């Protein structure tokens, strides 16, 4: 079990209904965490269209979830 903070942006923020949340998870890696949250929160973006960042750095989906991680799922960007 790890306690992590999720911060949401764009469509994910709208769908989560909050900017951030802290929760305890048993997910083995970031992919499993997203899949669990997508189910629980009703996220509509398939994981294949997202990237993920941990502690303000891009990470890979198979990275384990660690205690205290600040995690951001990155929807397709559209700056400029």
């Amino acid at each position: 079990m790890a306690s992590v903070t999720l911060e949401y942006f764009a469509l994910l923020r709208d769908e989560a209904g909050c900017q951030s949340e802290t929760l305890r998870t048993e997910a083995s890696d970031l992919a499993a965490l997203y899949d669990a949250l997508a189910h629980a929160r009703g996220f509509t973006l398939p994981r294949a269209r997202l990237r993920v960042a941990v502690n303000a750095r891009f990470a890979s989906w198979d990275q384990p979830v660690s205690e205290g991680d600040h995690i951001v799922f990155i929807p397709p960007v559209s700056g400029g």
Partner: protein
Amino acid sequence: MSAFLLTDQPIDTTAFAHALRRDEAGGYCSFEGWVRNHSDGQDVLGLDYQAYRPLAEAEALAVLREAETRFEIIAASAIHRFGSLAIGDMAVWIGVSAAHRDGAFLACRFVIDELKRRVPIWKRERYADGHSEWIACHDTEL
């Protein structure tokens, strides 16, 4: 020496553009993205930008440094705004100085393309018919 600013205030390019001046610079190319009143045939009233600040700043600086490595330029800088913007507002500015114009044009184009592709900033379009929508990069072209 590249610099990037993410701001919720109207973009003022004065200081950033001034910092690109060098006696050895013969060319300067800049790009500005403005909020336009239409998108894909729909009337647009304005845009809302969100940014994941720490990663956006790091990634934008990485793009600028890549531009300085890849092209024959002197310096490249950028400013991106977030928050709620109205038609005509400047959403992004990029400036590049170089000895010759080739490098300035190529690097400026590279920076805006990479910013749009890689930097965690998101745009929501507010339409005249009342609905609004988050835009995905591959659905839009500035």
